[in-house]
């Protein structure tokens, strides 16, 4: 604490402080006690480990893709192999990392605590969801070992049903299984929010993290089954040639697109909404202010979930859909920008006249706000029909969704992991190093993906492993950026692992935050609360926190 004015971080006196002996990690010993646990915090930890593994596998594929694109010639891998690379990258990152990233880890850990409950409504179903995730993940790895799949993560028909001889069925089954894991997570969250809130926890006293998870859960529960049936139909078409997507038998390949994107567009909101919840918590804590326009931010999450179901056709503008429906879907697509903008503006107003400090989670949150805004606005570009015809299937699209998914969601995920790390483990990570990692990630990200906007605008198509030589400079920049980005992602895993043993003891509330999760010990007890709390104040009430801590300070003094 050399500069106490520049940080709100308050760690207990390290000479006396200890991590509590009794907590959810030490409650039981042995591998089986983890594999058969019903504790939402332990399941969150299991998820955290498994999604990190898959993140680095998916990241390795991204590295290989960028390496191939370093030169215009197809010199590193054959074209088929390249197709398998980007397919694996997509499948792993979308279904095994982004969808479960925040909800299954941070959400699982925090949701019951934030609501003042002892656990999620269905602990066994929660554990089942992790096992389904693992089975899905192992199936994806099996596909990889058997020789891969090259449909792209979208399984587009008739490519996936008639023209490929790779492991579409295994991958499809993996996605199907992983989908049910996500359905069960969503179902658990919705029931918990409706039925398990503690006394006094009204809907409008819930943290915005909970609201955004509620919206994402609705999408998981309503969208994922449609993906499931679409995948089942692809598998049946491949295995038995039943003709439902085969034009020669009267089937319609566009039907697959409708079914697939009916899930997969809302899926991007499944990925981003929980991240937005993290940002709300972080921005409020590090500007010492209640989130500006709490109600508007809460409802904007629900609005995004609602609008999100009615925009799927914008993935199909060039596929021969009716012009009139394209017009309507274009308009609806632009409407989604409104609730997203409400969030960005409200966070900005939260910052205004706040006592802002720049701890690591806040740096990631700033990264999120900037990058998500660029990603979101380019989405409005792509939603307009004329622009879409020029830009679709180019690197502009790739850059757009990476700005939202990686620049947005991954930044939010890292913000959240850093923010709640002291709560989850009871230990603090090294502050300077982590700030450095946040800055490296931001620089690396922009270096990787800004050139891709230009590449796409100039007409470089996605999914090819060779390109005209005039595009090389921008591609080299992008590959160089990916290297920096890779370092930015390696750093946290190293110092976070280090902090598990050597990090300073964090204490109950290192950030002086208001959430219920900060009022209990870190790491929490298995039952979370010694007695069920009574919520007698609004969310983000910093006055309440001050009054609460004052008497304690005087007695100690």
């Amino acid at each position, binding site marked *: 604490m050399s500069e106490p004015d520049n940080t709100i971080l308050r760690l207990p006196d390290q000479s006396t402080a200890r991590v509590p002996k009794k907590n959810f990690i030490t409650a039981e010993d042995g591998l089986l006690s983890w594999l058969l646990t019903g504790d939402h915090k332990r399941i969150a930890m299991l998820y955290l480990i498994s999604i990190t593994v898959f993140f680095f596998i998916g990241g390795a594929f991204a590295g290989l893709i960028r390496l191939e694109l370093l030169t215009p010639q197809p010199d590193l891998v054959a074209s088929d192999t390249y197709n398998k690379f980007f397919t694996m990258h997509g499948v792993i990152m979308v279904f095994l990392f982004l969808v479960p990233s925040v909800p299954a880890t941070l959400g699982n850990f925090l949701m019951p605590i934030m609501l003042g409950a002892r656990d999620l409504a269905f*602990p066994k179903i929660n554990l089942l969801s992790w096992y389904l995730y693992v089975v899905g993940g192992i199936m994806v790895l099996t596909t990889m070992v058997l020789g891969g799949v090259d449909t792209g993560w979208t399984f587009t028909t008739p490519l996936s049903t008639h023209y490929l001889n790779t492991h579409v069925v295994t991958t499809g089954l993996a996605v199907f299984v992983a989908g049910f894991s996500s359905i069960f997570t969503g179902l658990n969250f*919705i029931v918990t929010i409706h*039925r398990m809130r503690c006394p006094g926890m009204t809907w409008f006293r819930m943290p915005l993290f909970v609201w955004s998870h509620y919206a994402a859960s609705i999408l998981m529960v*309503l969208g994922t089954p*449609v993906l499931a049936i679409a995948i089942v139909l692809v598998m049946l078409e491949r295995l038995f040639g039943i003709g*439902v997507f085969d034009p020669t038998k009267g*089937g319609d390949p566009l039907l697959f697109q409708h079914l697939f994107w009916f899930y997969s567009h809302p899926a991007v909101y499944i990925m981003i909404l929980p991240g937005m919840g993290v940002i709300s918590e972080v921005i409020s804590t590090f500007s010492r202010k209640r989130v500006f326009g709490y109600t508007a931010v809460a409802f904007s999450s629900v609005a995004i979930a609602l609008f999100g179901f009615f925009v799927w056709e914008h993935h199909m503008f060039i596929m021969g859909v009716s012009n009139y429906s394209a017009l309507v879907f274009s308009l609806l697509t632009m409407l989604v920008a409104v609730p997203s903008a409400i969030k960005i503006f409200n966070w900005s107003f939260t910052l205004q006249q706040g006592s802002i400090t720049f701890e690591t989670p806040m740096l990631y949150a700033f990264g999120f706000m900037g990058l998500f805004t660029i990603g979101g606005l380019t989405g409005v570009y792509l939603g307009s029909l004329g622009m879409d015809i020029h830009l679709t299937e180019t690197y502009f699209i790739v850059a757009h969704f990476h700005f939202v998914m990686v620049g947005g969601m991954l930044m939010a995920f890292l913000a959240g992991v850093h923010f709640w790390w002291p709560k989850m483990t009871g230990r603090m990570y090294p502050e300077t190093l982590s700030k450095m990692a946040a800055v490296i990630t931001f620089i690396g990200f922009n270096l990787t993906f800004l050139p891709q906007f230009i590449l796409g605008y100039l007409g470089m198509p996605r999914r090819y492993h060779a390109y005209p030589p005039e595009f090389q400079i921008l591609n080299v920049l992008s590959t160089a950026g990916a290297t920096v980005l890779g370092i930015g992602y390696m750093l946290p895993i190293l110092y976070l692992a280090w902090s598990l043993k050597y990090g300073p003891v964090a204490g109950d509330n290192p950030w002086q935050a208001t959430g219920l999760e900060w009022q209990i010990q870190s790491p929490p007890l298995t039952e979370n609360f010694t007695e069920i709390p009574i919520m007698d104040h609004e969310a983000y009430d910093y006055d309440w926190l001050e009054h609460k801590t004052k008497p304690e300070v005087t007695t100690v003094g």
Partner: protein
Amino acid sequence: MDNATATSETVMEHEAHEHVYVPQHRHHFETEQQQREAGSFGMWLFLLTEIMFFGGLFFAYLLYRNWYYDAFVAASNQLSVPLGGANTAILITSGFFMALAVWAAEVRKKQMLVWTLVFTTLFGIAFIGIKYVEYKEKWEKHHIPGASFDVSEFINPPIDAKTGKPSQNPLPPDVAQHTQIFFFLYFAMTGMHALHMIIGIGLLFWLIGRAQRGDFSAGYVAPIENFGLYWHFVDIVWLFLFPLLYLINRHPLAH
């Protein structure tokens, strides 16, 4: 309990039962009622996901029925309305016994609960049996979509012995090809439904075993209640499938 009427005693007795401690109460729920509400709410949400799952198939049906109406009518006439009708009746009966079972569990009549569950199961199995007869007929006629699918019956319908005319309008070969889409949807939708029935029957055996042990005779009825929701949902899916698949020629589109 301020107005002491004749019923107040029974009310108190009833409430005392409500608050009785059940061993199935899970530690993370504050009250037993919260646990029961959470369980049934979760079940409703699960059924919502099921609706969305079947919804994809219904959407496909809607699309292709509009595109290939003639082929759908011809193919639909291959299905046996008496068998489908019988199955509808059987399923409704099974649902009736399930409803009785839920009631029996609530009033804690153990023997009645076991027997109604047994009847629910028997009618469920009867449904699957009739479905098997129907599927077998399609197999013999080569009406299963795929490589061995045969459209000859739609191009050259068998001659009706009485009138000496084809039993239904012959379809041109390209239109007849579209009957395959109908049969695929028929098998996908009824097959998915039958799969849900089979899972349900499996669960019923488990519930019968537990009911026999007396698990649901002491105020803990959540599994019976929630399974009832599931079983009725499967019934309702059939009530949509039957008219869509079997009866579409009863009211032909004007064209």
